[in-house]
């Protein structure tokens, strides 16, 4: 999807600069279904309207039509593939950090490879391979981690020496390299032509394509898409797909019901040169030099080289207007650092003649991941945009997943990391986006290390205790805009500054978190967990109970005052959410979900709760401050503050009671923690937060109370084998697969979502099993630390990946959690995973190419549960979220 302005600009430029390129990109224009001027008028009705004729829009159209949907109209304001798609460098690279992105890129590569044969449109596909260079050991570790992921996916890939680099590419200066990663199947394409090929195929399948038609707004009725308004008339439709690229944000806001699509454009520059004296072979591998922030590919005998500078230039913050086109000019001074990096990498290019510096705006998102999925507020409104300059690599796969989403209700892979619903209105401020993308764009080339936090757009949502905790040495991370404490730096102790603290090894906070963990185990700690999403659902009659019983897998018809851990499952039995629900009264429930569930869970419930004015749901997240009192002395602190008996007889575990704490009344106290330690959650109306905190800290002094943060919490929950939604659990994981059968009441006397799928699994067995691994020969001080996404090997064969890991201060070992699958040795077919299969294997975890022995366990160490108050407590609290 691209602006017409861009197109006009590009035509003038490209014609002047290079006829050959232009001829190539446009040679297939006649095959495109539309010629100008518009010979066909717009249809009055269609099932799907796609806005944007770039790689995303055409890919969605292509895949929808392949899946059998035919009644599709694709609208492009300018001409097909004329925006960012036309300008982009055309590199298809599978070297990605996030597994879902890697899968999309791999699919795209395979799709593009056969596209010319399928459509007859020349795509310029050339399998050149790519070489990612490492100038530092840390970079090499990062590449090795990607290589491990690629290898287990069956994508050829190897770590090579600088000498091998020199053999693969004649121009590279290798003197400052420590190694590289070679991916031989990565490719180059003419991106505009790939898009045209997809359009051609789609149009043969019946998709109607209309150029020079812009969408002015999307009509919505009763929360559903009903049609679009264009400059050439109206089209009624059931589905709308926003593939408008860098204009997607504006388009999202143009309707009466705004759809927040948080992305922002930045200028992006690359250089084109004339051919070398001896023109470069078109099969020469693409070079990515992340430490130099550049990429270099062969282009018509010369090179094309661009990069991601440290000081990006965001644009179109105030929306689109005529004036801004003038800014899209070459900025050589801005490009200077990248040019220096290029000449350092390929000194022989000095004498090469410049053809042009291209300015190609790209859109970036707040977390460097693309945006896809259905709007949480408008049903039938789908989005695919914000590609963070990897549109060509993702285009095929992303289009496929979105098409599956629309046709089947959900994609064939877990795309939560890319789901539009991970964002809400809070990420939609233009100022926030402008600042954040200026941080995100340079990150494209920065080292991706564990536990990394964004620095911009911070301190947006905070607890009332923020300043208090900050003054006590809190170090912060952010989740869904909410500031949460990582750990507290004791007075007089200094940590490394941000840049130096980046490591794949033992981090500098190791001992700090260790002492917080110790305090949780031996005394009592306070953790501010206010970021949790909190809903109240109530009704005049039994509607609330009935609806929730249908939407949740556990039995919620419990006595008032009880707390139930339960999954919110989809039809396949997979976790859409994992939450705790307290029954406040016969007719009202208090639901606590992970922080980043605020938008997704709301939309899920809203779409499924009956439309009944007697049934109300309210988001009360902002109303309560949540303090977690954790540790064996929590009970003492609380009983002294409330003058109420807190003994197990009066306050059994998984219980909820309103009581007074200090002077403050109406504090909702629940006997749950999220780590398996004894303790309480206090839900405090925000105006009492400071008072209660002060009381707790004063009273707790004699019990050795101290503040703790999420890193301690994380270590505690992982060593006890607690899974957490969004990291370990996703829409493709069922309770049966993660040892949570006890949270499913198949016989609760009424139907619930996912029941059938679970019954089937109960009968037939599961195909993957959540397993805990204790690293055996791993040296915490000297070895690379596990993170997540490490391949798991059983008897030398790949069986799955880790989903989270932490150092257990109690076991003094690293613990990794992950899923084990069983692939048939010959056919690769997935087989049922049995307890025996898990128990009878020798396991290894691959951390950046180095394998560590690991012991697999299906149940946590009972010795870790210091405090056992009810027989089944271990199991019942076997639940965690972060």
């Amino acid at each position, binding site marked *: 999807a691209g602006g017409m302005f861009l197109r006009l600009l590009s035509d003038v430029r490209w014609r002047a600069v290079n006829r050959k390129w232009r001829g190539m990109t446009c040679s297939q224009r006649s095959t495109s279904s539309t010629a100008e001027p518009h010979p066909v008028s717009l249809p009055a009705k269609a099932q799907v309207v796609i806005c944007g004729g770039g790689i995303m829009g055409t890919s969605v159209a292509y895949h929808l039509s392949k899946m059998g949907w035919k009644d599709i109209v694709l609208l492009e304001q300018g001409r097909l593939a004329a925006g960012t798609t036309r300008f982009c460098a055309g590199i298809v690279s599978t070297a990605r950090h996030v597994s879902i992105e890697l899968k999309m890129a791999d699919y795209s590569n395979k799709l593009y490879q056969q596209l010319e044969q399928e459509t007859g449109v020349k795509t310029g596909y050339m399998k050149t391979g790519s070489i990612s260079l490492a100038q530092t050991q840390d970079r090499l570790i990062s590449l090795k981690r990607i290589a491990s992921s690629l290898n287990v996916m069956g994508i050829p890939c190897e770590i090579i020496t600088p000498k091998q680099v020199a053999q693969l590419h004649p121009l590279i200066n290798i003197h400052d390299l420590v190694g590289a990663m070679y991916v031989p199947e990565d490719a180059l394409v003419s991106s505009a032509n790939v898009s045209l090929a997809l359009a051609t195929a789609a149009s043969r399948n019946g998709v109607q394509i209309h150029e020079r038609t812009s969408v002015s707004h999307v009509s919505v009725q009763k929360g559903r898409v009903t049609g679009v308004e264009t400059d050439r008339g109206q089209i009624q439709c059931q589905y709308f797909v926003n593939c408008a690229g860098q204009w997607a944000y504006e388009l999202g806001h143009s309707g009466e019901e705004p759809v927040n699509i948080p992305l922002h454009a930045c200028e992006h520059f690359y250089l084109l040169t004339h051919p070398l004296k001896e023109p470069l072979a078109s099969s020469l591998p693409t070079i990515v030099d992340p430490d130099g922030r550049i990429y270099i590919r062969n282009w018509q005998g010369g090179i094309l080289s661009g990069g991601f500078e440290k000081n990006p230039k965001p644009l179109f913050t105030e929306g689109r207007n005529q004036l801004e086109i003038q800014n899209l000019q070459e900025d050589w*001074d801005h490009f200077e650092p990248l040019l220096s990096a290029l000449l350092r990498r390929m000194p022989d290019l*000095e004498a090469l003649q*410049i053809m042009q510096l291209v300015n190609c705006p790209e859109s970036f998102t707040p977390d460097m991941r693309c945006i896809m999925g259905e709007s949480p507020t408008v049903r039938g409104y789908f989005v695919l945009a914000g590609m963070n300059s990897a549109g060509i690599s993702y285009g095929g796969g992303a289009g496929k997943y979105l098409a599956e989403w629309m046709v089947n209700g959900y994609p064939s892979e877990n795309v939560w990391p890319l789901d539009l619903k991970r964002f809400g209105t809070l990420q939609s401020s233009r100022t926030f986006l402008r600042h954040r993308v200026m941080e995100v764009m340079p990150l494209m080339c920065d080292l991706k290390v564990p536990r990394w936090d964004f620095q911009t757009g911070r301190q947006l949502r905070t607890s009332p205790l923020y300043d208090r905790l900050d003054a006590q040495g809190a170090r912060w991370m952010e989740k869904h805009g909410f500031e949460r404490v990582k750990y507290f730096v004791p007075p007089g102790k200094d940590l490394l500054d941000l840049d130096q603290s980046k490591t794949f090894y033992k981090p500098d906070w190791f001992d700090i978190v260790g002492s917080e963990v110790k305090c949780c185990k031996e005394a009592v700690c306070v953790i501010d967990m206010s970021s949790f999403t909190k809903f109240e659902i109530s009704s005049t009659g039994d509607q609330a109970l009935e609806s929730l019983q249908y939407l949740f897998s556990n039995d919620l018809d419990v006595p008032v005052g009880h707390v139930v851990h339960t999954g919110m499952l989809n039809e396949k039995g997979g976790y859409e959410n994992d939450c705790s629900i307290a029954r406040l009264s016969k007719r009202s429930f208090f639901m606590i979900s992970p922080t980043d569930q605020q938008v997704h869970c709301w939309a899920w419930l809203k779409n499924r709760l009956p439309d009944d004015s007697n049934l109300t749901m309210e988001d009360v997240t902002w109303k309560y401050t949540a303090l977690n009192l954790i540790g064996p002395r929590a009970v003492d602190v609380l009983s002294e503050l409330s003058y109420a008996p807190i003994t197990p007889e009066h306050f059994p575990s998984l219980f909820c009671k309103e009581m007074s704490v200090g002077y403050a009344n109406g504090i909702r106290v629940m006997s749950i923690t999220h780590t398996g330690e004894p303790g309480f959650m206090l839900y405090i109306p925000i105006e009492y937060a400071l008072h209660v905190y002060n009381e707790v800290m004063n009273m707790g002094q004699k019990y050795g109370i101290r503040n703790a943060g999420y890193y301690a919490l994380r270590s505690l929950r992982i060593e006890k084998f607690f899974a957490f939604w969004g990291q370990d659990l996703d829409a493709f994981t069922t309770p049966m697969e993660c040892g949570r059968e006890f949270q499913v009441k198949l016989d609760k006397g009424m139907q619930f979502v996912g029941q059938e799928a679970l019954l089937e699994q109960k009968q037939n067995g599961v195909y993957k099993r959540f397993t805990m691994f204790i690293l055996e020969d791993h040296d915490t001080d000297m070895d690379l630390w596990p993170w997540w996404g490490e391949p798991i090997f059983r008897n030398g064969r790949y069986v799955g990946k880790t989903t989270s890991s932490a150092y257990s201060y109690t076991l003094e070992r690293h613990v990794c959690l992950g899923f084990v699958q069983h692939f048939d040795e010959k056919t690769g077919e997935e087989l049922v995973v049995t307890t025996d299969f898990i128990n009878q294997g020798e396991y290894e975890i691959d951390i950046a190419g180095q394998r560590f022995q690991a012991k697999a366990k299906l149940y946590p160490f009972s010795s870790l549960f210091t405090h056992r108050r009810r027989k089944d407590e271990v199991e019942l609290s076997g639940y965690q979220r972060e």
Partner: protein
Amino acid sequence: FYLTPPQVNSILKANEYSFKVPEFDGKNVSSVLGFDSNQLPANAPIEDRRSAATCLQTRGMLLGVFDGHAGCACAQAVSERLFYYIAVSLLPHETLLEIENAVESGRALLPILQWHKHPNDYFSKEASKLYFNSLRTYWQELIDLNSGETTDVKEALINAFKRLDNDISLEAQVGDPNSFLNYLVLRVAFSGATACVAHVDGVDLHIANTGDSRAMLGVQEEDGSWSAVNLSYDHNAQNEHEVERVKMEHPKSEEKSLVKQDRLLGLLMPFRAFGDVKFKWSIELQKRVVESGPDQLNDNEYTKFIPPNYHTPPYLTAEPEVIHHKLRPQDKFLVLATDGLWETMHRQDVARIVGEYLTGVHHQQPIAVGGYKVTLGQMHGLLTERRARISSVFEDQNAATHLIRHAVGNNEFGTVDHERLSKMLSLPEELARMYRDDITIIVVQFNSHVIGACQNDE
């Protein structure tokens, strides 16, 4: 032997001073945003002085640079005293009365000036009583003269300059019982100083100049480029009007001997100055004062030496030439500097360098390859060179320091050459004066918004 960049910086920044006008002082919004000043000595000790102060009983701000010769005593005295004379000249009758009454009855005095001083800018403690008495005599006369008319700034500046020079002359003639002070007032009178002073009040900018320091306005044109407007005339042999004036004031018979080798009486470069009684007093008066003066003075060959062709004194005056300028929004800054700067840099370059420094924008034409044949290597060289030009800006937090860096370190291409800068700054004391003069610079930055608003009000 080379100085490292940090060493160079510590030398350049030793005397830098910045003052930012508080944005909301509760009274009025100032047309001055603030100023940066700095000095680089060539003489040891430096003979330049600088002053800056806010008038407290009237509106406005005073800034000045003073270039001393034949020692620093006169420049020092003028830097301490002149602004008081100006402030007093500007005061309305009632305020003068109030001040006089306070002094008379031993009450606390209304503060007249708020000084903005670098720690190295000292005031002489010993002479303060003497200076105060002279000033008091001046305001008492002003009270007696009460004309009832509101004070005209131009007139006030001229009166203050002339009165101070007169007081310097008188104090030396009368002497002081304290031998230290007696020697001091004589040194002040026998040395000399030029002065270039700005008074800014809203859109009214007055420059009073005596001698060859210079005031220059930095103007930003509509296309963003910078140009310079002179707000003072140099009083030296290069100024025809000035030569004309001197000739008019003396008999035709002296015409040939008045200006020789571009110097007044073949000796003095500036044609107007404070002090320098050797060019003002009669021969008899000079002889009497020197003979009755302390031994140090008597033994000094310079003071005893009478200029040749000395027939009709005075040959020199401290009366300033005053230029009034109404500030416009495009007037972004004012540079006051002693001749040490103007000897090395053209005013147009000064305007550009300061303008680009203050706006942070480097008006370098963007590069476009267009149809030219440019190689990557050539482009890289060009870009690196452009970058170097920009990066020298960011070393400095002070516009005056930045200007000095250019004045001393510029190569033939107009960019700062570290090697040259290092050489110039590491010259031994006795050689330094051969290659460069003392440099003193004040850069005053204006608030275009306030100026624009004032303009609209008028």
